[in-house]
């Protein structure tokens, strides 16, 4: 094993320890003490408005895929979709889910058939659309979906490239309320320029904790903070070491 692999292994071990430590020491009110991220309130508001208007919410899971390097972004997008699916039992019109990775189709379909629909006696048929795996063509497909009169707001979360701007601007031009999140620093300015609410960088991966409040999601946020402080400390020590020795 190379030095980099040893460091990687040590990092994973530290992260797992931090995760379990967070679980043991977490306070009961930890969820309430998380810093507020406006995106999640705006998402709830967008869902309520879609339910009131009888129009659909468009949910884009990005141009990345679950089998790619950007799988974490797609998994984070699925957390958002899961939350939307759970709360969409009162919708007259099922959210329109568009995706570029065909492997996400069965997962998205399964999520959109959540029991929430059955609880209130409504079962709008899931509307999951695989458009294409090519990012520019996907953007064109989303622009067409947004152009439909049935769309009220658009939620775009996941892995995106420059094609995000095409979709973001289309939503703006059509006066669709837009919420978006991305992790790529080169895409974030586009998100900032076009979306009403945004998830920036690591906030994307916090979606599960904020929306579902699931214990392990919250604990992993605490573990992230713990490891982040360790990295900050390591950077300061190394800078000091390099400066004085």
């Amino acid at each position, binding site marked *: 094993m190379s030095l980099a692999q040893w460091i990687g292994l040590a990092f994973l071990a530290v992260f797992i320890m931090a995760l379990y430590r967070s679980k043991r020491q977490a306070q009961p009110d930890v969820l309430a003490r998380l810093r507020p991220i406006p995106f999640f309130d705006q998402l709830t508001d967008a869902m309520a408005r879609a339910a009131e208007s009888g129009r659909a919410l468009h949910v884009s899971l990005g141009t990345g895929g679950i089998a790619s390097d950007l799988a974490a972004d797609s998994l984070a997008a699925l957390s958002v979709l899961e939350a939307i699916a759970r709360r969409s039992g009162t919708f007259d019109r099922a959210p329109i889910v568009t995706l570029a990775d065909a492997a996400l189709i069965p997962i998205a379909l399964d999520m959109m058939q959540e029991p929430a629909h059955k609880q209130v006696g409504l079962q709008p048929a899931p509307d999951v659309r695989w458009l294409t*795996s090519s990012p520019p063509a996907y953007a064109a497909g989303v622009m067409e979906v947004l152009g439909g009169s049935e769309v009220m707001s658009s939620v775009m979360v996941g892995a995106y490239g420059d094609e995000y701007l095409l979709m973001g601007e289309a939503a703006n031009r059509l006066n669709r309320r837009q919420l978006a999140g991305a992790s790529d620093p080169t895409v974030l300015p586009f998100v900032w320029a076009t979306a009403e609410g945004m998830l920036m960088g690591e906030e994307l991966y916090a979606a599960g904790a904020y929306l579902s409040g699931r214990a392990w999601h919250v604990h992993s946020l605490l573990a992230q903070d713990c*490891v982040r402080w360790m990295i900050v400390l390591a950077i300061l020590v190394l800078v000091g070491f390099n400066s004085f020795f």
Partner: protein
Amino acid sequence: MQGLSEVGADTSSQKKGQVVTRRASVAVALVAGVIVLVDFFFERGAPDAIARYVLYSASVVAAATLLLGLITLTKRHVDKLIRRAPGRGYSAVLLAALLATLVIGFVGGGPGSPAMRRWFEAVLFPLEAALFSLLAFFFVTAIYRVFRIKNFESGLFIVVAIVVLLGQVPVGALIWDQLPIIKDWVFDVPALAGVRGILLGVGLGSVAVGLRVLLGMDRPYSRQ
């Protein structure tokens, strides 16, 4: 009463079946994840061979889901044509292009054949390039929206953007010779520090998501 008890038994066996399926899917995901993770640390030997097999199997499953995507896409557009829905002309074009690609693929000798390459180079690539060429115009409208000062943040953004724009072009140095130096400082210090901060957070977030899935705490592949 007998009928009701039969229904109850059916529901109970269905639930048991669901639990077994869920546990099996979690076990498969855990084992596959651990194998691929172990392979990251061992470049040769049995872990590498097993991980290759797992990844190959995953690519076969991914190909199958692509077929599923193709079927849903075709179904949707055929349905649009049958219902004579607005925009059905585009659906007809899409289905014709799909059929043409299939025919060229089968007759021309597969995905890597010269005929297929020509088809992609003549149709798909120019269309994608045309779409991406629109980015410049979209960029201008986005910038116009951002350049309306709403708060301190957008005001600061405008000032920095103007300084960087002037520092990038030769006329900037003529206006004030310090502008290119300030531009370089903006790129190298605050912008780079911000990007590194974001990337650090993204890296930690990705590890957290990966570990949650790997340890079975997060199961997007089965209802939790």
